[in-house]
């Protein structure tokens, strides 16, 4: 019994392309909804500001720490002398 390969191939193509496009369309729909929900209930701009300020605050902290450590070292050296 000979299977018609071409017909099999066309069936594959039909099923394959449908699945791929269906998957991506569903992905697009869900993705858009997700973005809308997140933008509405968890608005980003504030978050950006927060993280930005957070990072600058961290930087300031680091600088303070460095200053404190240098001061300590200087102090120690002075005592040593």
């Amino acid at each position, binding site marked *: 019994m000979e299977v018609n390969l071409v017909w099999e191939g066309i069936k594959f193509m039909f099923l394959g392309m449908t699945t*791929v496009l269906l998957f991506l369309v569903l992905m697009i729909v869900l993705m858009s909804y997700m973005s809308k929900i997140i933008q509405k209930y968890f608005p980003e701009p504030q978050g950006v500001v927060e993280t930005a300020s957070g990072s600058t605050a961290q930087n300031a902290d680091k600088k303070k720490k460095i200053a404190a450590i240098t001061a300590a070292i200087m102090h120690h050296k002075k005592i040593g002398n």
Partner: protein
Amino acid sequence: MPYWAKSMKALLIKLFAVVMLFGGVALMASAPHAQAETAVQQEDTYKSQGMFEMVGGFIESTGIYALINPDPNELNAHGEKMSDFHKSWGRVIMILVTFLMFYLAIGKGFEPLLLLPIGFGGLLANIPVADIAGPHGFLGVIYQAGLANELFPIIIFMGVGAMTDFGPLLSNPKTALLGGAAQFGIFGTLVGAVALSQYTDIFDFTLKQASAISIIGGADGPTSIFIATKLSPELLGAIAVASYSYMALVPIIQPPIMRALTTPEERKIKMTTLRHVGRMEKLIFPILVLTLAILILPDATPLIGAFMFGNFLKESGVVERLNDTLQNALINIVTIFLGLGVGSKLAADQFLVAETLGILALGLIAFSVGTAAGVIMAKIMNKFPGTKVNPLIGSAGVSAVPMAARVSNKEGMKDDPTNMLLMHAMGPNVAGVIGSAVAAGVMLSLFS
């Protein structure tokens, strides 16, 4: 006698007793073995030979002799007989082919990260006598360890996921359709391949083989290797080489197709600036896609799951060390093994067959059809109301991240130097990776 001397004596006696006990046991145990071993060794290892015999024997074990006078009993990596051609001139030709790969990788910069390990693996696999690609050679061991069970392509996918930024896709979701359309290259070629096998004598591919070959159109190396090892491991070498070669040739293959299908006006379309995408969207996206894959196509989840795992680690922002390892150390190590393992399939008896030419030709067709389908899809999308899409980004739907997106950008700038399409093209580009993983999942589900 002082106390210390007494205790010392007792200690010595105990020690002596222990040594005698264990030593005696060991001797008793080893004695018969040792006798048997020496007897066997004397029997079959070394025979004294005359000088001429010795030199003759050595000459027979050289590579030159093996290439000129192939050993009639030599078997290939699968334990099958090989033709004399594959054992002699075939090997020389394949070694020259690997030299050509070195030239392309080093001189022309074609995907050197993969072509060099693959090429060198191929060189080693074609050495006579040593049998490096055989079951006990180190290439054979690497192949068994990570390719025969599809482990390496999956790990590569994790690294690719950690390197991928879904931001451009999230800010313009509909471009994902372009990544879907480009998968037509895969299925169109599948039909073409089986039609040619059925009605002509040019090729003779089974449905499984045709599927594995047409996946080259997905322009995704790890996916091609994953599918090829599952569906037709005998074609792995040619499929991997074709896949990576065409990915390297994207800047040459794609532009003529893109230009032929678009008008200058279309190429000048400017796309709206992408909005900023928040961290939470990027964090939820991998889980969303994986959930979708779980519900619709579990067969695609090994690929998509690994991909999204890498991406999730990256976007979580709390495991910088793991993310860094995935993107650099791990993917580099696995790339070396993957390349060598694929190279082991470049042995002459497996690569120098008529099918290889068919695979190279069909792979090129798959690639071109995919490119064209992406561009045409973009043109169709422009027929609908809504923001316009520059059709040049359609070609980026055949994964090949980020090369295909760069080509779109370059072609766009040829017509309008101020038109920056790179980030817009990254959307369909990463959607193409998901699309080809889904296509691969469909193939697997159909054959399972």
